[in-house]
């Protein structure tokens, strides 16, 4: 008998032991005289179940087990041989029926985990490159119109309407235009870009190619953070294979259209996730933020009209072109259209990638998907939207996850990161970290961010040491206001968000009780 087994090669899967499990499986199979085909697939993002092992069972299809330890592989193989797999304690059932996955609406991440990420024929078999085939038959304006109809907004954090950005670049005059993919996913608590690049790299390549056709750009760059070596290898191999099959290069699928793509590595700077700093970095300069205008859509990379989009934005475009913008816009609510890949992280039992239509509540995500904290203690604070997002308190967890609803309670959805903290967290320390991080990572161009973050850090050091005076908190508010109002980019402008929300929602951690602070103001 030949057994087909899938074990992921994703960074997180490997980080919790997938390589050791894969090795043990191969070894156990050869000892038992069982032929196995071991496929190292991408991850489905169900990180709470990794290392996840999927076994292809003729009748049931693919069944999953997880988390599996290397020591269990002999017993698993014996259980398969006896037809008793469903009695094994880590048996999860047919992979598509696991509630954690089945309750999601996977559009952008639908292929992740299905097979070898570099298998181009599998990608096509699963609907890949249908979007590009259609785009090749459309006019640039028709492609842009389709994206506009989808209501897609930038998934990197700023949520700018993608179709409008593309229209600006399409309308800009210029021989040379560029597509830049922002893969500098520096926000703690986010890993959706990494997961997608490691599990379904062709989708990003296809999305960028469609963007190139839409605006008349023949060259694209993926700016990838240096903390993602696996994603780098995966993308570089995928680009090579796509070139071989005519999906990149001077004559896309015989259409006469050109699109070339290159991966460029960042060098450990958080601010390079800001689009204009990223462009400077790509140009080989210090990653200093540029003043806007001019918009990158008009004067971007090397001064040319440039589309700068996040990985997920560009990937989403493939489904929008394949199935139509209207179909995509059926999902979601209000002006938050489509699905949002949320990333559940921090102190959580079953974290991972959860792609759902906009509007699911934070409470559902943390409790129904996440199963509460990993420590078993009570949830105290949840940071939504990365290091620049607000710290929400337990009372706020009913908020539906849409751009609008989070803005209403003073937060933001950002890139969809959700970091859960239990009741052992000290929120003054978290506020201190926010200022400290800003001070370390500020590009230094504007004064409010460069100086404000340092002063903010000093004040919060005093709060953490219990040496702060009541005037210190007033000073901190004042600094926050200056940074918000006068910083050049979102780094200085939004660092006050975690700081102020920590002060507002957890005043007891700042040496003040309830409303005393408000009275002082």
């Amino acid at each position, binding site marked *: 008998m030949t057994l087909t087994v899938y074990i992921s090669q994703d960074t*997180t899967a490997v*980080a919790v032991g997938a390589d050791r499990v894969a090795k043990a499986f191969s070894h156990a199979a050869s000892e038992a005289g069982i032929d196995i085909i071991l496929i190292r697939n991408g991850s489905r993002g169900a990180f709470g179940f990794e290392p996840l092992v999927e076994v292809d069972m003729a009748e049931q299809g693919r069944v999953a087990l997880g988390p599996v330890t290397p020591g269990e592989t002999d017993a698993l193989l014996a259980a398969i041989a006896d037809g008793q797999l469903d009695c094994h304690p880590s048996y999860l059932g047919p992979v598509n029926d696991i509630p954690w996955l089945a309750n999601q609406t996977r559009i952008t991440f639908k292929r992740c985990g299905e097979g070898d990420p570099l298998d181009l024929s599998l990608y096509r078999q699963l609907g890949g490159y249908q979007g590009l085939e259609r785009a090749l038959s459309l006019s640039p304006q028709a492609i842009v119109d389709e994206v506009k109809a989808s209501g897609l907004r930038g998934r990197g954090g700023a949520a700018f309407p993608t179709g409008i950005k593309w229209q600006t670049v399409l309308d800009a005059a210029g021989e040379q235009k560029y597509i830049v993919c922002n893969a500098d*996913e520096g926000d703690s608590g986010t890993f959706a870009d990494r997961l997608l690049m490691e599990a379904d790299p062709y989708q990003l390549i296809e999305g960028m190619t469609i963007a190139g056709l839409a605006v008349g750009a023949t060259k694209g760059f993926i700016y990838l953070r240096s*903390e993602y070596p696996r994603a780098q290898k995966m993308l570089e191999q995928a680009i090579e294979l796509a070139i071989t099959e005519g999906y990149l290069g001077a004559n896309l699928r015989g259409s006469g259209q050109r699109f070339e793509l290159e991966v460029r590595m960042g060098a*450990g700077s958080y601010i390079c996730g800001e689009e204009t700093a990223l462009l400077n970095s790509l140009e080989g300069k210090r*990653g200093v933020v540029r003043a806007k205008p001019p918009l990158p859509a008009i004067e971007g990379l090397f001064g040319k009209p440039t589309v700068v989009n996040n990985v997920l934005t560009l990937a989403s475009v493939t489904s929008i072109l394949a199935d139509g913008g209207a179909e995509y816009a059926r999902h979601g609510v209000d002006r938050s259209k489509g699905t949002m890949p949320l990333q559940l992280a921090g102190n959580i039992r079953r974290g991972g990638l959860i792609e759902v239509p906009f509007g699911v509540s934070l409470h559902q995500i943390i409790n129904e998907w996440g199963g509460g904290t990993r420590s078993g203690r009570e949830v105290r604070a949840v940071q939504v939207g990365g290091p620049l997002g607000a710290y929400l308190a337990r009372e706020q967890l009913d908020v539906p996850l849409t751009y609008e609803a989070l803005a209403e309670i003073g937060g933001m959805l950002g890139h969809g990161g959700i970091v859960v903290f239990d009741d052992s967290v000290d929120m003054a320390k*978290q506020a201190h970290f926010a200022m400290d991080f800003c001070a370390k990572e500020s590009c230094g161009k504007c004064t409010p961010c460069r100086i404000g973050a340092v002063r903010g850090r000093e004040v919060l050091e005093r709060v953490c040491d219990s040496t702060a005076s009541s005037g210190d908190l007033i000073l901190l508010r004042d600094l926050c206001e200056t940074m918000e109002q006068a910083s050049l980019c979102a780094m200085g402008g939004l660092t006050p968000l975690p700081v102020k929300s920590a002060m507002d929602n957890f005043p007891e951690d700042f040496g003040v009780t309830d409303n005393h602070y408000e009275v002082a103001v």
Partner: protein
Amino acid sequence: MLSENSLPVKAMKAFVEKAATDHAASQGGLLPCLHEIQAKLGYIPDDCLDTIATAFSLSRAEVHGVVSFYHDFRTSPSSNQCVQICCAEACQASGSRALEAGASGVLGIAFDEMHPTDNYRLERVYCLGNCACGPSVRINEEVYGRVDLAELPALVREAIPS
């Protein structure tokens, strides 16, 4: 002067010159150039800035400005082997503050320094993209999840035998 991996000065100069010339021909090639030099030499030696500046038609100050801006680029001899402790929020939520506080003690090495006998550095890093299974540690190219302070020395020994 010998470079980290004991390239003779002449070979090092030839290597830097070739890397600079090659990358200067591509658009925005300075970062890829610096990455290549550091991968080979372990750091960006001060005395190669002029060579790079000439190839890229930049001033020495501009090249220095780029090298000093990015956390990844080092300016003193170092190994390319590295242990990085993630200190960002998601890992903090799952226990990285204890890992950060104790790492120096259990490994016998201060942050941002080379280990006295074993050939690696200890660094802080802010997010490795393993946020659902923190606290995370990266040793060279591999990321490890749910790392406990007590098991850190064994992980490092296994990945970087002394």
